[in-house]
């Protein structure tokens, strides 16, 4: 069902935009109209064509057909300079900041105030500081980008737009990289811009954020326009149905299950950071049993990564003991851990999960290529690899351009993640470690990942989940271990606790004396 609300006074109209790339129509006859002073959300799954549409508006791509109007006048936007001249600015999903430049230099790059070619830094600094104060965008103009937080980098990107006096602001998934506090702050700032008469296009796939700040929302699916709706007349459920094309359940269906024997047991684990030489994991002990999902929750950078690295063998612990199925694996090789039943969905899927320039089939067999099924005297049996890959692709619904021979780099994030999950789940395992498995995925893919994790639990496997998303933590875990400053400060039951309480533990405002767990996981 397509609803289009139409009531004049548009600052930007993108009419019947079509943009094709080899083999795919990224935007198919899409019309989007932006009103003056509104926050207009652009919703869609990964690969729905949101970013392409915005790149067309920003002059990075030229549309194959269709036209763009500003204040009713047809305009041609050939490059970002043209967009800038029309008052269009964009905060890109991956920030476009030069790391070795200062904040100030990044803001003025391309529009430097200058006399005879010489940059007038003082003039620029004055204007930047005025903007910074006016909008509450705290930055240090002389700090280098590489030294500041992601949140401040984003403020630099926003200041870049304001410095150029842009009145049409595009935000491409601005909240993906922020902490909950920073998200709240950003949404307030966006509202402030709208009140001032600036018009905002807000790309996202987080429905809560749309409900909170957006006036209207345009939904794309697979390159096609599904519709534009008034946010106050709609619901999260309706939006998600428009986005995905089917009903999405927000809560995960989970049967009661009694945990079985201890699969993973960690005792008094200490890890020293490679970066600053201090203890980042302090005396951490916990068990994960068969048939339960244990979640380590906490704000990013509190030692989660190091705990997982120690368990999976990516990093050596300084002291402590890690047992898997009763075997001491503290110093074992990664291959041995894998054989003993550990599967790992890593935090950084590009760095540790996949060989991006390998084919899909090669990636799918990465954990198993040495087994007799796939090799003979060192030679890979490519026909069995192919067969195996085809089986997994079908079973796990991995979508790609050319099937088993697709280069993984060219696949969408969701399907890359599916490939990792397929590989890790299909091999023999008793323990599945999933670190932020839904990061950067769209809602359909998130649902899929959650279903897979719960299915593993129901199949009697132990699941250790590390997540920063509170919704995810509350929805799918059986037990929550809250980590703060490298220590486990509380163990919570998701059924009896609240988001607020969890938040207090995560911020370090509350902590329990966690009872000592006596010796290893023997029953």
């Amino acid at each position, binding site marked *: 069902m397509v609803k289009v609300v139409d009531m004049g006074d548009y600052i930007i109209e993108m009419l019947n935009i079509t943009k094709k790339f080899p083999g795919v129509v990224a935007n198919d006859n899409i019309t989007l109209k932006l009103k003056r002073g509104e926050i207009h959300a652009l919703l869609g799954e990964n690969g729905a064509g949101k970013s392409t549409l915005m790149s067309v508006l*920003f002059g*990075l791509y030229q549309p194959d057909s269709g036209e763009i109007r500003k204040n009713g006048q047809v305009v041609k936007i050939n*490059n*970002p*300079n043209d967009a*800038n001249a029309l008052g269009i600015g*964009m905060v*890109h999903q*991956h920030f*476009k*900041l*030069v*790391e*070795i*430049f200062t904040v100030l*230099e*990044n803001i003025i*790059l*391309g*529009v*430097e105030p*200058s006399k005879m*070619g*010489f*940059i007038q830094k003082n003039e620029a600094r004055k204007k930047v500081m005025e903007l910074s104060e006016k909008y509450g965008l705290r930055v240090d103009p002389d700090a280098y980008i590489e030294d500041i937080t992601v949140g401040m980098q984003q403020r630099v990107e926003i200041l*870049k737009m304001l410095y150029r006096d842009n009145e049409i602001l595009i935000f491409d998934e601005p909240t993906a990289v922020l902490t909950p506090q920073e998200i709240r702050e950003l949404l307030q700032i966006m509202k402030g811009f709208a009140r001032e008469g600036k018009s905002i296009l807000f790309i996202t796939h987080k429905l809560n954020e749309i409900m909170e700040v957006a006036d209207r929302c345009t939904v794309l699916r697979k390159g096609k326009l599904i519709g534009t709706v008034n946010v106050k007349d709609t619901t999260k459920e309706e939006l998600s149905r428009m986005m995905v094309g089917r009903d999405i359940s927000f809560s995960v269906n989970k049967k009661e299950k009694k945990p079985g024997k201890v699969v993973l047991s960690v005792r008094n684990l200490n890890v020293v950071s490679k970066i600053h030489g201090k203890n980042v994991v302090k005396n951490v002990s916990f068990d994960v049993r068969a048939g339960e999902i244990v979640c380590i929750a906490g704000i990013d950078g509190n030692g989660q990564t190091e705990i997982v690295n120690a368990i999976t063998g990516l990093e050596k612990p300084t002291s402590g003991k890690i047992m898997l199925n009763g075997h001491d694996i503290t110093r074992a090789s990664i291959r041995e851990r894998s054989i003993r039943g550990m599967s790992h969905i890593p935090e950084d899927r590009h760095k540790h999960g996949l060989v991006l320039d390998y084919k899909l089939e090669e990636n799918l067999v990465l954990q198993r290529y040495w087994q007799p099924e796939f090799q003979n005297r060192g030679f890979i049996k490519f026909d069995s690899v192919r067969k195996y890959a085809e089986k997994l692709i079908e079973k796990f619904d991995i979508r790609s351009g050319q099937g088993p021979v697709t280069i993984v780099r060219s696949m969408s994030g969701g399907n890359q993640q599916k490939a990792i999950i397929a590989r890790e789940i299909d091999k023999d395992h008793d323990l599945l470690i999933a670190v932020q498995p839904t990061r950067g995925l769209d809602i359909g893919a998130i649902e899929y990942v959650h279903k897979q994790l719960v299915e593993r639990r129901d199949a009697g496997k132990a699941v250790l989940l590390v997540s920063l998303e509170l919704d995810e933590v509350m929805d799918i875990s059986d037990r929550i271990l809250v980590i703060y400053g490298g220590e486990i400060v509380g163990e919570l039951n998701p059924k009896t606790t609240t988001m607020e309480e969890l938040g207090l533990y995560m911020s370090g405002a509350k902590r329990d004396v966690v009872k000592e767990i006596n010796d290893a996981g023997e029953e």
Partner: protein
Amino acid sequence: MEIVYYLIQNTLPVAIPLLLVALGGMFSETSGVVNIALEGIMLFGAYFGALFVYFVQDLGLNPQTILLLAMLVAAVAGVIYSLLLSFAAVNMKANQVITGTSLNMLIPAVILLFSKMYFNSDGVTTAVNFYIQKIPVLGDIPVIGRMFFQKTYLTVMIGILFLIISTVVFYKTKFGLRLRACGEHPHAADSVGINVYKMRYAGVTISGILGGIGGFFYSVGVMDGNVNGHTGVAGFGFLALAVMIFGQWRPGKIFLASLFFAFLRTLAYSISLIPFLYNLGINQTYYKMLPYVATMVVLAFTSKKSRAPKAEGIPYDKSSR
């Protein structure tokens, strides 16, 4: 004290070609194009500079005028040769290291061929004396005058001038800021409307100018105005790359690094004047290895910490992200 004067007077004319060529490399690499071809560009500039001198030397012009004119010729020659690199690296998106290497291999052969054809020799030999005994007024300043303005070449003053201009352009101008952005994060530069291709052409072209001039200054300050196809510029183009890395792609540090290498070389060639070293009885050939051995040692220790422009060597492709 005599020996200190001597070393300084002889270090500078050697340091200047290194300085200029390394600055050229800096402009090219901070725009994002790896310039291995510096050696070739130097030699190309040196050859045309020397050819120019050869053809005008009998006209009775002032030697310093000839030097300035030949410098312009060398700059133009350097630019022309560097355009081959720009074209391959920017337009054709070719591998920059391979392109640079082939450009290096081409030039000595070409010089030998043409010199044999037209001069029946291995290179160009000129007969203009560019040496300056003493610069009027400045040369009379106590101590400093003797160090910097006596028994020297005009190339030294020009080189320092280029250093100052380069530093100002690099750090204080719109152009410099944009150029550096292109070598570090071309997508960021593109997103604020900077034409990355143009900036990279500009960077390589500047390296052509400085490389060509540096080559000619090498033949003036080190080879008495001659160029031949066998010794070429004796690896000074590569040494300049080391100077650039040692100097961390920064003009001031590059200047110090070029002085360091030039000093070692001068020292190596002056052993017989330094009784202490001479009496050690080490074969002088070993001393001549000094600058090159130092290159290896210095790079081994600094290259780990060194921070090259992030996007250098990667052809810019608008559509990839």
